């Protein structure tokens, strides 16, 4: 037991120790602050293929430790990427690097120009794929606002047995095939709730699916110069087509889908066709689902115009905030991330495709041959899937996806107006209203066109978007 005297003595020692600690505190803090210059905070989405995150996080840490940089990686769900960016811009603090999976263009004003990073990468690997360039560069402001290390193809997923039973073993090739097949699918597979599972809801996958439909019928939101041209006979044809397809092959379920719903419906064999990347397929593989043996892929469908296009499923856009105090380190990190394109593609189980094909080239390949060599390496992976596809070349069509893949904003560049239209579901709602008869195709088109013009007008006033002289 302590006497009062001992207690006071011990207390005094503690106070003295505290005071000493306080006196050296600023030094420790200063060291911490000096060390803080060598920190890098990265905000990353939670990848649809979880194996990727298991590779990315340690890779980033290791990259940092080799350079004396403390790298922190935080993950958010894909739906929180934009709200989180908004919050960080408002607070002018947060992460140094922010990864967008769609369009980062709305944040252009608050990110640094990374032209030098892209320049370095081009010197090492040659040019990036065109859709990555069109998603990360604003030709109007001439700013390279993001770096893309990867993009994801968006093929059609079809149920081999069902399509074989209706006499189309290779799956659909055109949009008209879907309309023709739907009643047949109902006949041979009446247990399937939704013969054709093309989403028309307020979610990311539907947003892409309806754009594919629009483009393949010859329509688009903007032309290559940024004029709003949604109000066109081609768009009307696309809407009339959606109405036909909905009436023969879809149910109201597709109006309520979230990003996981089409995967779940296909994996549960409740639909015979969806538009999706290979993440749903990898889930089926991981869980050894019965659908696996009938899980096959087709390229983007052709429209009546002969146009065959699909939006990228994901387009990475890494930005460096202006408020970041580690901008130079962040630039080095992004170069290193592109350098690791092969590892990235393998870690994501062939979900990620390099934005710089040259970064996947064999070592010591001459500059002029790098893109070609990278493409060959990518094709080799897809032609003999190292992750156990049966048959091994099931994913081979992905290696040829580039010609039928394009960026949001096609035929122009991605821009903030296209981003806002995407994030507020103007186009999916137009298609859903026309398909279900909530509005006539013409009224749905007028409503959406007016809203698009309003959004473009607003961004033009801010000097971020081109066009307007030829708005329809």
């Amino acid at each position, binding site marked *: 037991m302590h006497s009062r005297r001992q207690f006071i003595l011990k207390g005094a020692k503690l106070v003295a120790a505290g005071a000493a600690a306080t006196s050296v505190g600023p030094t420790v803090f200063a060291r911490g602050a000096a060390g803080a210059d060598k920190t890098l905070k990265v905000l990353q989405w939670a990848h649809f293929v979880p194996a990727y995150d298991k590779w990315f996080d340690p890779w980033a840490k290791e990259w940092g430790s080799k350079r004396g940089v403390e790298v922190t990686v935080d993950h958010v769900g894909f739906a929180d990427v934009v709200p989180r*960016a908004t919050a960080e811009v408002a607070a002018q603090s947060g992460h140094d690097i922010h990864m967008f999976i769609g369009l980062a263009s709305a944040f252009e004003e608050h990110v640094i120009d990374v032209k030098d990073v892209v320049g370095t990468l081009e010197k090492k690997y040659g040019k990036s794929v065109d859709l990555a360039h069109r998603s990360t560069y604003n030709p109007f402001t001439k700013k390279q606002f993001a770096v893309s290390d990867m993009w994801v193809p968006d093929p059609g997923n079809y149920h081999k047995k069902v399509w074989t039973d209706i006499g189309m073993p290779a799956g659909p090739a055109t949009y008209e095939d879907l309309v023709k097949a739907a009643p047949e699918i109902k006949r041979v597979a009446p247990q399937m709730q939704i013969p054709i599972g093309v989403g028309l809801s307020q979610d990311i996958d539907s947003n892409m699916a309806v754009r594919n439909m629009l483009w393949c019928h010859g329509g688009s939101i903007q032309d290559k110069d940024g004029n709003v041209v949604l109000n066109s006979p081609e768009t009307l044809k696309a809407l009339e087509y959606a109405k036909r397809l909905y009436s023969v092959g879809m149910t109201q379920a597709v109006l309520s889908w979230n990003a996981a719903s089409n995967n779940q419906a296909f994996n549960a064999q409740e639909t015979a066709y969806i538009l999706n990347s290979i993440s749903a397929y990898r889930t089926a593989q991981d869980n050894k689902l019965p659908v696996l043996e009938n899980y096959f892929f087709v390229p983007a469908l052709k429209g009546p115009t002969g146009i065959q296009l699909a939006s990228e499923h994901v387009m990475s856009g890494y930005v460096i905030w202006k408020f970041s105090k580690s901008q130079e380190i962040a630039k080095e990190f992004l170069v290193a991330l592109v350098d690791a394109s092969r590892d990235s593609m393998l870690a994501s189980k062939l979900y990620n495709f390099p934005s710089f094909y040259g970064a996947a080239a064999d070592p010591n390949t001459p500059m002029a041959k790098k893109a070609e060599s990278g493409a060959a390496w990518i094709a080799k992976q897809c032609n003999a899937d190292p992750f156990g596809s049966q048959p091994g070349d099931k994913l081979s069509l992905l290696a040829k996806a580039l010609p039928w893949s394009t960026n949001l904003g096609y035929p122009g560049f991605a821009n903030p107006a296209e981003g806002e239209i995407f994030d507020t579901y103007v186009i999916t709602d137009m298609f859903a209203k026309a398909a279900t008869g909530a509005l006539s195709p013409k009224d749905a088109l007028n409503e959406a066109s007016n809203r698009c013009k309003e959004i473009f007008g*607003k961004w033009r006033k801010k000097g971020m978007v081109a066009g307007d002289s030829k708005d329809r």
Partner: protein
Amino acid sequence: MSTADLALTPARAPALETLSRRDRRLGKILLAPALAYIFLLVALPFLLALFLSLTNSSAGSLDFSFVGLQNFRSVLRSAVFLRALRNTFIFTFVSQLLVIVMGNILARALMRPFRGKLLVRFLILLPWAAPISLATLGWLWIFDSTFSVINWLLKVVGWLGPGQWYYWLGDPVLGMIAIITVHVWRMLPFSTVILLAGLTSIPKEVHEAADIDGAGPLAKTFQITLPMMLPILTVAVLFGVVFTFTDMSVVYLLTRGGPYNSTHVLASLAFQDGVLGGDVGRGAAVAIFLVPLLVVMAVVMLRISRRAEVV
């Protein structure tokens, strides 16, 4: 010695004055955290929203210019906004009506002694304690358009025939029903507890006296229970109405405003336009649209509540 006597004693006057001043100072100090809280977390964001609604501010920019009432004019022309406005009223009034009626029934049931009452009270309170995001995941499965357990159950009991299916979240009307159901489930415990407190605070003697006077159950309900519960009922309704008018979580987690923006309420539409779409000015205009109405409603209900207290 009375207070009046003290006041009349000249020697004590300065001491009393000091005491009174000290009290006032202490009062101010004690009130300061609450005032700071209200100012920083309520008044300031509200004034900021009001300010932003008059600008063309966007999410990716700190620059903006004044556009007057342009945002308000623009949203008033929007069919989506008008639909969201209508939905907000339907969502609020239908859910509050259900909450009050069902809360009353539950509270009356919980007044009576029965076995397992504690467990029942715990279960009733559970939805209030559960995080809404977690709870909504369960509801998402219950209302899923492809895998809804309600539909499977209805199939089993023969309510739904071959080819018949309810697309709970894919139909504007069923979507609103689903949203209201989850919100009622979520709000019911709070309302029940409030009403239970009101019911238990009515002295037994009043009911006994009414029994002696020969009052029937209806007369007792309308002439004793309801009038005596009016202040607490008003608080419950006011809280519920304001909370529901400004809530977006159920809508956002369940339907995200779909199908085709037909189940938005103003709060979820404001989030979609302002945060996801990046049009902060427009989002702010949508968000504060109902403020004048809510202020009037709060004042009226608080006046009713105060009058009832006096009676």
